[in-house]
């Protein structure tokens, strides 16, 4: 029944183009500079011959946004979740030593998107600028197991900064209620030092990198308007 409601809702939106409130979800793919974090990882191996098996690769991002779409302008607030990680590992017959470093970023910002009519309706190009604040956390999980002995230790660093991300993309209006879009941009961060247990560490979380997005926009029209 719920599926039917959702399908009907989506079908109904096809024939509507209107201005109104919107909810947007996009999944993306980003590259992360994170030089300081990688330095931490490379400094850890020490005497135990740990080897980097994973080093903060590019990874999927998730974003949601709430905004108001006027047709040509679209603005609102968005929230993104960035995550990547690294691993140092060593194992043999006697046990294993694993250091997992999980880096999460939480962006909360505002955005403004301007749609440009391409003449190939319902496809349009847009330009977007999105500034905001960025919360970062680095969780280091060490797990050692040697024979019957094992030990775990977690360390967490937290950071704060601001970012700005210009984006360019295309949108396809499937209906007045539902739109699809693809875009790409580059995030530039201005982070502060991360902190460990309240103490400032000489580490900054630069999430800088390219972002690719693809998502859908749900629009709740406030009044109907003929797109022609």
């Amino acid at each position, binding site marked *: 029944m719920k599926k039917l409601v959702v399908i009907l809702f989506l079908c109904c939106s096809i024939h509507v183009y209107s201005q109104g409130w919107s909810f947007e*979800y996009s999944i993306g793919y980003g590259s992360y500079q994170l030089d300081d974090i990688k330095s931490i990882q490379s400094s850890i191996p020490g005497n135990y011959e740990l080897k980097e098996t994973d080093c903060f690769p590019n990874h999927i991002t998730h974003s949601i946004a709430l905004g108001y779409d006027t047709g040509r302008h679209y603005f609102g607030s968005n929230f993104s979740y960035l995550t990547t990680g690294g691993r140092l590992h060593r194992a*043999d*017959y006697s046990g294993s030593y694993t250091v997992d470093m999980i880096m*999460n970023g939480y962006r909360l910002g505002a955005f403004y998107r301007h749609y440009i009519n391409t003449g190939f309706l319902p496809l349009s190009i847009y330009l977007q600028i999105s500034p905001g604040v960025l919360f970062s956390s680095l969780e280091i999980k060490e797990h050692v197991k*040697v024979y019957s002995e094992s030990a775990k230790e977690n360390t967490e660093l937290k950071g704060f900064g601001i970012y700005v991300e210009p984006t360019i993309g295309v949108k396809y209006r499937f209906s007045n209620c539902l739109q699809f879009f693809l875009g790409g941009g580059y995030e530039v961060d201005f982070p502060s030092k991360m902190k460990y247990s309240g103490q400032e560490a000489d580490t900054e979380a630069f999430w800088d990198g390219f972002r690719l997005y693809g998502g859908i926009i749900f629009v709740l029209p406030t009044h109907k308007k003929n797109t022609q």
Partner: protein
Amino acid sequence: MNNLNSILLFTITLMFVACEYDPSGNNFIDLTPPEDSIPIEISLNDVNPSDTIYLYQNTTISIKINSTKNLQQAVVLIDEQEYKNMWSESLSFELYPEQIDEGVHKLTVAAIFTSDTGSLAEMMGLEGYSGELSWNIRVIHNPQDQFEVGYRINEGGFLELFWDNVIPESAIEKYTIHSGLTQITDITINDAAQKSFIDYGYVCGYVYYTVKTHLKDGYSFVQRLSFDKETPGIYFENLGLDKLRIYWDKPFANGRFNLNCDSEIIASGITDTTVTIPQIFGESRQFYVEIRPQKTAYDNIHTKSSAWDWFCQGTSLGLPNWELYAYNITDNIIYTRKYSSLVAFDASSLQEKKSVSITGNPWGFAYGGKIATAPHNSTVAAMTGEETWIFTDSHFVKPIKITPLRGDVNTRLAALTSDDRFFVVEQESSNCKVFNTLTGEKIFEFLFSYKTRYTFPDHVTVSEDGQFFCASSENGIEVFEISGTIANLVYTDTRYYKGVMFIPSQPDKLLLRVGSNIEIRQIPSFNIIQTLDVSANGALLCNIDPVNMSLLYYQNDSLKVCRIDNLSKTIFKIRSDETTCKMFNNKLLTYGKGGISFDISPYVSD
């Protein structure tokens, strides 16, 4: 609509959480696990762990560890307490006994080795090999203080040194014994189990030993022992009249003995401590026992001890020069002299009663030599080198001095008579002088023909009452009867006389030693009363004891006593070489030899 929004929000949140990056990758290194055990070799000064290490001096401990794996760390523990750390496979350090309590301790070397697998466990120190080895160490402070040396007499009777060490025999190389007095060279005992040494060279006296323990590591320590065991004393025991037992204490250890009498060897090399020899009266003999090791190989000047003492049969009166004797029967006093003093002894106790010094110019009594006592009172006369002193008794006061009238041992006659006369015939004189003892005046003198050349025995005699005078010699005899101041010859012959004397208290009886007989004749008839043939062994007259009326004479090698009324029966006999003895109140008295007295009373057989 609200439900739809809730679903969407939950879904989104779940997606976020589920989408947190999960690091991946695996770095497994295929290593060969270690063996269960490996050989480990730990050595400590090459000492077998089953042996006890004796720590008695500062000792260098060298520990070496060897294994197929790398040494990570080793610890030296003493009684579970960490003492040293080792970071390499060898370690040397000094162990000081004074830093460890005396007693038995456990020294452990515990070592940890890597597994050399390179595994994570090894890197974390959770994998490796360990091994340990322990030794017992016995700490001894100042072992020389616990090196005890003693001595004893072994079952064989010889001196045996024995010792004991806290150091075990296994650590001892040898013992050396130095005895500068009993052993020519030091003794070396290479058997550590032998903890005693028999010194055949020691018998008695002072001795010292230095016993040294030599340990195998070159260390040595000594213990000294000295002691002084009394040299045996020599003693005498009269075994009747004829036997003398000479004995001495058994020395501390077995010995052999040489017994000498004066310069004569009596016994040589004996092991018994008693010797019985014949008695001989009239000699003060020095007995000298020489004590030596029983084995002659140990003879040297240090192993010889000696003991000596004088012995005479009877009692020594301690008289310094040639003794003169005279007996006063009234007072039972024996008169003699000490140097220039006239001395009175109680004839029974032989205790000195009184003495008087008679010094002369230049000779005095010391160089005189005749004493005479009166038969009827206490008068005593002493002839000095210049004059004659006559005392009324043994109090020796106000003597009558007859000057000049010297006398000495060669004076033939000096006799007091009961008529207060003093008869004197000087050396080789044929003239008899008669003095008044009360005044000292010479009464008269007369000549006789037969003068003797002998000092002993008496050849000239006067009867106690002064009535008869007799002079004899090897050429003959003359008997005079004294009447007032006239001496009338009443008998003479030309036999060979060897001594004459009037019998005390029997002035009409004359004892004669003539030819091969001893005769008693009646005076003046000169009839024979008794005769004793002594042709077989001869005889020398000594004197007649006026108390017991016994004749003392010397025959062969003995002094013999017989009653004057029975010459043929010997009532006492004693071995002697003294021919000039006198006997008063059963006391034999020697001439010379310090004046030896012997009471024959217990031995006289009637």
